[in-house]
């Protein structure tokens, strides 16, 4: 498993994402309340570019007529058929155990630490002054 520097921390603000290509794979890197997550940019249903979907919350209900929005900004809705995925885990809302979008570990690493390597910086210029989003795969 290699570490890939994909962005500076400031580049992906909370609620936003960045699509990157790492080792030939398109990956969406999301900032959810200042924590970073990465999902493959491909819906397991019919192959749509999942990470271009809307970042939404989860609607839950205990009984008909009662609705509440939870986990605001933590769900990703596929731009084609609206399947919902947990950005933090890649689990689908419908079948969390069997239908998942592949997720990858993400860490934030100071430029100073990265200077020691090993890492792969494909498009990001690394300086010791900044913090970086690093995806492992």
């Amino acid at each position, binding site marked *: 498993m290699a570490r890939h520097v994909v962005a500076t921390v400031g580049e992906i603000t909370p609620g936003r994402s960045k699509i990157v290509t790492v080792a030939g794979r398109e990956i969406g890197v999301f900032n959810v309340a200042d924590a970073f997550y990465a999902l493959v940019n491909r819906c397991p*249903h*019919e*192959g*749509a*570019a999942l990470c*271009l*979907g*809307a970042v939404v919350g989860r609607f839950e209900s205990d009984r008909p007529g009662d609705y509440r929005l939870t986990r605001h900004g933590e769900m990703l809705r596929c*731009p*084609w*058929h*609206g399947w919902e995925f947990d950005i933090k885990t890649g689990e689908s809302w419908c079948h969390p155990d069997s239908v998942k979008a592949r997720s990858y570990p993400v860490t934030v690493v100071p430029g100073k630490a990265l200077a020691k390597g090993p890492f792969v910086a494909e498009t990001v210029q690394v300086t010791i002054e900044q913090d970086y989003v690093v995806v492992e795969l």
Partner: protein
Amino acid sequence: MRMDAWPKDGGHPGSDLALMREQLLDAFDVSYGMMMPLLGRGGDERNVEFGAALCSAANDWEAQVWCDAEPRLKAAIQVTTEYTEAAIKEIEKRAGDRRFTHVMIPPRGLEPLGRRRYWPILEAAAANGFPIALHLGGTSGHPSTGGGWPSFYHEEHPSYPQSKEALVTSLVVEGVFEHIPNLRVALVEGGFAWLPSLCWRLDKHYKRLREEVPHLKMLPSEYVRRNIWVTTQPIEEPERPDDLLATCEWIGWDRIMFSTDYPHWDQDDPRYAFKVRVPEREKQMLFRDNALAFYTLG
């Protein structure tokens, strides 16, 4: 709408030819794309003179703006089913123009489509070599389900097969296919897995109630098998994907055409819609041969 189908420069999904080529025609090596305009709704219009004018103008627009710019696209002849003379005139006007391949009739009319008042329009289509395409979407003013108006889109969407069942039953039982044996009908945007069970039920009742409909000379399922084609979208996704193959066998592989419904949100991708491997011969029928035959494009 499919979210990534909104053109960057504005406009509605499906309104930008370059994007349509990129996401549909080129992406899937489409030889013929069948257009089914759903906005404007001249076909449903109650002010029938206005409806007829709207249909005719929209048909010109399809041919001139779309087919002339992109010959892979084929146009629908939109008609106002409540204005028989205008509908027939419109069909005859487009006869022989190869940009037009099908007559589009709103499937949720004021009365079931098999009623005699609609026969002249169906006759005109068949006489001029056009098949009929019945694409669900919108309502005539009647509730979209037999049990009344639904509350949720989640209820509305499954009402499509219900409407299709009503259409098939009406066309068969009223004797349309006995009267117009060469009429070809495509059911669009209703899936297909419901069709075998409907045929089983129609045949069962034919044995008991035949006396009521002596104009039927064959089993209802035999008319369906001869005159009706189905399209796949929105494809059923059974728990056991293999079951879909058996369903296709029951319907007949030669009567099923792949459809995308691009650029709608519930469109199907030809590469992944079937969650089971379709044998090569059947795949050719599904993606090519059946449509070439149905639209006489060979």
